[in-house]
């Protein structure tokens, strides 16, 4: 191959003169993105204005700094994180059980699962929390006859009511997510599992669920993030989570905005940490798939 650039009149052959098609000596001028500059300028202006408004508004920023690490707030943060993890764990366990039940050949199990999903998706979480918390109005005592019995008000603490309310509600949503994941696995995988002598339950646990996890994890991560924020609803049943504790403080000192900002900062921190954990988990379950490399 011979360059035509330096030799505009190739004489070696009858090759036609193509030198005027050569554009390699021109300088490339990149396209100017004027609209991007305009958009950026407008947004910087808007954000600047917003920051200025908050800086000059009636917010005592030193209170935000002061309460950010106060004991009551950190205790509330701990309770928020703990409740999110426990309620989510309960939700995932229930979700897997009810998803498998819903896909069972046994009609009793199938309808039970559908009923559960129907009921708990059909009512607001806050109402469910209040129902659990006020269970004592219906059943003054609970227990297993002959084994143990207790006063419901002693058992149904804010913690217990929040865990049951949030976890069972979450289970109804997670069941649908898990079911979608199970349906996403190729039928050939069930057949291959059967062909090496696996029962239905074992093939679900060893073959199908691990593959379904790829589909299940992203929405579950999403729901976990929702759960972090949903625990704030438990403030209505006096569970001592971060928003509840922030409210208690501002009822006393009237620094409403400052304490709401404190709670907001912590929610964002927790959700950010979770998002990072989620992408790691996704990578783990992507092994052996096309996008694992």
């Amino acid at each position, binding site marked *: 191959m011979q360059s035509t650039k330096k030799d505009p009149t190739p004489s070696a052959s009858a090759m036609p003169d193509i030198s005027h098609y050569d554009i390699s000596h021109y300088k490339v001028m990149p396209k100017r993105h004027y609209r991007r500059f305009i958009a950026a300028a407008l947004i910087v202006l808007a954000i600047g204005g917003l920051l200025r408004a908050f800086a000059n508004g009636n917010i005592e920023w030193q209170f935000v700094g002061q309460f950010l690490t106060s004991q009551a707030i950190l205790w509330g943060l701990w309770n928020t994180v703990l409740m999110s993890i426990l309620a989510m764990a309960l939700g995932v366990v229930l979700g897997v059980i009810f998803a498998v039940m819903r896909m069972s050949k046994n009609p009793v199990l199938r309808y039970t699962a559908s009923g559960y999903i129907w009921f708990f998706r059909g009512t607001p979480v806050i109402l469910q929390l209040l129902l659990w918390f006020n269970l004592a109005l219906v059943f003054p005592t609970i227990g297993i006859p002959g084994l143990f019995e207790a006063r419901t008000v002693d058992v149904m603490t804010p913690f217990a009511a929040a865990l049951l309310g949030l976890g069972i509600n979450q289970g109804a949503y997670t069941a649908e997510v898990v079911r979608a994941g199970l349906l996403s696995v*190729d039928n*050939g*995988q069930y*057949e*291959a*599992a*059967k*062909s*090496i*002598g*696996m*029962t*239905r339950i*074992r093939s679900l646990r*060893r*073959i199908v669920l*691990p*593959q379904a996890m790829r589909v299940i994890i992203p929405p579950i991560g999403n729901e976990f993030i929702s759960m972090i924020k949903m625990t704030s609803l438990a403030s209505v049943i006096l569970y001592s989570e971060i928003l509840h504790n922030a409210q208690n403080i501002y009822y006393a000192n009237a620094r409403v905005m400052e304490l709401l900002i404190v709670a907001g900062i912590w929610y964002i921190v927790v959700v950010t940490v979770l998002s990072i954990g989620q992408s790691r988990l996704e990578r783990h*379950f992507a*092994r*052996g*798939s*096309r996008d*694992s490399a």
Partner: protein
Amino acid sequence: MRPIVVGQAVTKRFGDFVALKEIDIEVENGEVLCIIGPSGSGKSTLLRCINQLEKIDGGGLWVDGELTGYRIVGDKLHELDDNQIARQRLATGMVFQRFNLFPHMTALENVIEGPIQVLRRAPKESRDHAMELLGRVGLAHKADAYPIELSGGQQQRVAIARALAMRPRLMLFDEPTSALDPELVGEVLQVMRDLARSGMSMIVVTHELGFAREVANRVVFMDAGQIVETGAPEDILMNPRNERTQSFISAVLN
């Protein structure tokens, strides 16, 4: 020696469609039987009925002398439950057209999954046996590869090793080379040829007439849910008597 498979008036319907019409079939121990026929003729369905991936609607199927799917009590047939069917399936190994390897496991993990999880064999013993089988299919060096990293032919050979790891009495092949690129067909057929020579009982649904002619003890031609013609490979493939067999074979060859 008793036959490895006996089918008597086996009938299978999908809704109104009759996939198998009262099929009678007998496969001897150690025999290699090839089933050929146009698509939709019921040959894959028959294979899937033999290891109970499909439940038959009439007749009876015996594998290794055991009635499949039912237990005879007095004059009644009791349906078997999931666990009992899973146990009966251990007599057969199955190789699928689309390989169906477990994508989240390496080749080795695919092969040891059944022995460890189902047969409750020791991991060390399962691993040794699996490596021996992977060696037999020429893939010992790919033991740690995930299915996605293997070619179709390699995946199918791992799938054969996975089925053999359960030490089945009978191997079922459901068009094992139909999903392969032409240049990869040979390596899979070679593994199957070696397996046939080792004395394994095999039923192979295939379009590879050359393979059937070379390896099969008997060839069955199926059409429209029925067995049209059965015989030695030379007779069926070279001198088919039935008109439908003739037209099928000339269509495949041309």
